């Protein structure tokens, strides 16, 4: 080996050592326990918290107008770390921090002045907006920053809260993350027809840009508990909160769209006025638009199959086809009533099509749709809609015997009584 070669080899060794050293770490690494992992956030009409007011009084203010209060929910690493072996007072699994201002991004950045770690948002699951705020500001403005953001994923879900949105991110239960709790409830679609399919940021962008009205799941909260109750109507033109469908209305809407995956329908027997409960197994609806000389109308055919799951009618015999027919008819009448009620609300009260009639028209009559789409909600209010409901009761559960045996034993018992009476 010549000295020249040796020198070259030394140089190469040094170079590779240097390169290896530079490969040891990530360029922009951050310790995960130092980061504020945001899982939920809520937007409210401005009401600065006492802490904020005090901080501002002492000079912690910047030029802004108080419009929105943003509450960020972080995972509390101290609490989750201690779980199981806790000795001291239990800590909540989450930390809610509020900040008030006008620009959502600036508000978010203000947290950087109050917290020691950076906010990390790719795990943000839910955004809750208060009804009052959604009434006064356009949703596309409120959510603009989140749609542009590169950390927040478009899979994040949007909810409307009837009360203060920050209350929906509270929980009494130890170790529960309210944001994830909300996410969990959205999975219950196969158990009730009073949930709407959750709307993600991605879907929201679609709705916003199409200009059609749509629904967002509504939340109510009391004493640190949350219930999914009805839906908020978001007007496609104003992009603001345009009304509220209660649980009952929402049920009717689910029947129109046919998207329900489960749930029960309560109706009263015509003859006896007693309770009958129908459990939905399948639900399907076909919305057929009709266009005759610019006159638009819709025919909706709803089909459902299910089971008689609860019966308070004493006389009815589930083994008797006649009785089951009667149950089918009562259920059908109940569905009719539900869908007419909600249609009436959509057309008269909210003046917004949130059931997807416009979508069906777009698919079946694209050229007519081109003409009416800009002012669809107004046209929709005057459109006649007819409903046909077909309910089939395919079974009545494990017990049909109860009332049948009752009918058989009844004469015997009375005979017994009769026999006993003279004694």
């Amino acid at each position, binding site marked *: 080996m010549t000295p020249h070669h040796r020198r070259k080899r030394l140089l190469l060794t040094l170079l590779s050592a240097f390169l290896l050293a530079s490969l040891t770490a990530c360029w922009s690494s951050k310790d995960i326990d130092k980061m504020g992992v945001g899982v939920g956030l809520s937007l409210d009409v401005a009401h600065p918290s006492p802490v904020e007011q005090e901080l501002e009084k002492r000079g912690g203010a910047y030029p802004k107008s108080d419009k929105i209060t943003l509450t960020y929910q972080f995972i509390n690493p101290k609490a989750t770390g201690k779980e199981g072996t806790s000795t001291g007072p239990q800590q909540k699994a989450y930390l809610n921090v509020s900040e008030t201002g006008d620009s959502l991004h600036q508000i978010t950045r203000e947290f950087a002045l109050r917290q020691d770690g950076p906010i990390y948002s790719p795990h943000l699951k839910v955004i809750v907006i208060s009804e009052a705020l959604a009434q006064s500001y356009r949703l596309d403005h409120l959510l603009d920053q989140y749609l542009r953001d590169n950390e927040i*994923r478009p*899979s994040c879900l949007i909810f409307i809260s009837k009360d203060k949105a920050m209350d929906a991110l509270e929980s009494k239960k130890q170790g529960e993350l309210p944001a994830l709790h909300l996410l969990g409830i959205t999975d219950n679609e196969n158990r009730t027809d009073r949930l709407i399919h959750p709307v*993600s940021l991605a879907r929201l962008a679609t709705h916003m*840009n*199409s200009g059609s009205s749509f629904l967002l799941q509504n939340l109510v909260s009391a004493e640190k508990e949350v219930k999914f109750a009805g839906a908020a109507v978001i007007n496609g033109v104003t992009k603001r909160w345009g009304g509220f469908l209660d649980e009952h209305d929402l049920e009717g809407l689910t029947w129109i769209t046919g998207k329900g995956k489960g749930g029960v329908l309560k109706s009263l027997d015509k003859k006896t006025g007693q309770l009958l409960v129908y459990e939905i197994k399948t639900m399907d609806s076909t919305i057929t638009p009709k266009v005759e000389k610019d006159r638009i109308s819709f025919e909706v055919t709803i089909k459902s199959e299910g089971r008689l799951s609860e019966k308070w009618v004493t006389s009815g015999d589930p083994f008797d086809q006649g009785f089951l027919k009667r149950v089918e008819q009562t259920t059908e009448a109940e569905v009719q009533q539900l869908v007419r009620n909600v249609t009436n609300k959509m057309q008269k009260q909210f003046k917004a099509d949130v059931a997807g009639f416009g979508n069906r028209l777009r*698919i079946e009559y694209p050229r007519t749709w081109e003409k009416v789409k800009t002012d669809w909600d107004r046209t929709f209010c005057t459109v006649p809609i007819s409903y046909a409901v077909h309910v089939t009761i395919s079974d009545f559960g494990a017990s049909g015997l109860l009332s049948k045996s009752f009918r058989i034993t009844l004469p015997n018992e009375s005979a017994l009584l009769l026999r006993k009476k003279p004694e």
Partner: protein
Amino acid sequence: MIDNEKNRLTTSQAAVIVINFILGSGILTLPRTSVEKVHTPDVWITVILAGFFAMLAGVIIVKLSQRFPQTTFYQYSQEIVGKWLGIACGFLIIGYFIMTSALQVRYMAEVTSFYLLEGTPEWAIIMAFLWVSLYLVTGGMQPIARMFEIILPITVLFFLLVSLLSLKIFEIDYLRPVLGMGIQPVFAGLRTTALSYSGFEIMLILCAFMDTPSKATKAVLVGISIPLVFYLITVVMVVGAFSIDGVVTRTWPTIDLIRSFEMTGILFERFESLLLVLWIMQIFSTFCIAYYAASFGLSQLFGKKIRPFLYGLLPLLYLIAMTPKDLGQVFALGDMVGNASLILFGGLPLCLLIISRWRVKRIDATSSP
């Protein structure tokens, strides 16, 4: 001309190179750019039609190249239209390849620094990318082809997996009605969509490398049909998830598609990082082949060895890649390069083919009596 026997390519290798060259950054924006023009959910028909046009153009290029066996476009263009005009054509094509490769780097840097490595300076991402590709292309055509043969199956596998997962947010209604506004809108997007197939032009050079140039037609047809399937799946899934109203609002719709759902309970709940890593590999391959084609052209035109051109081009590519000031300018430059490719590879080869036929006949006619 391609004297090194080791650098010969099999037919399937040629097809793989064409596939990898076509599948570049275009797929990340294709759903948006095509819907912007078409305005109806029929973009998928546009994608198929554009694919057929690309095949036609590809076959013309192959037919042209087959008339001059063992030589690349840089050499035979001089035979067809004379030395100086031929050299000018050669430089045009080289310029195109340089711009394409620089653009790919920039797209890669933009997407990576936005979604994947926020905080890492763009130059750092690009440097690593450029040096690795330099290492690959100094090996010549055969190593490039082998590398591509590794990259392609991985991309196909994960791409299909990720697309299938996005069925979770797929709505068939968003793809309906079919041809609701007639066939007219479908044609409106044809040009934009055809641009996403650019890449088959590599056959201008590749034919000379093939061990059986007679099968070049097959290579180019296969090479275009696989990207066609990829594009079709992408457009259908993205429009099915966002609807045409939603697609136009997303800057990188294909990435947002993957960001729009989570698969809870699976090892990876989020797939966008996976998709991005794959797509960096695809962009890498697109870049490498364009970079090599440009350097190879320069070496042939100047009659010098390829290495100095490889080293010399690298800083130039970096400078061009960093020239656009913002994303808007990047997209505008992309459009410009795309339009240039339409003329260069849609029109020029056809002209050359006609001229060469006519001249050969004339030569025959003058020599026969």
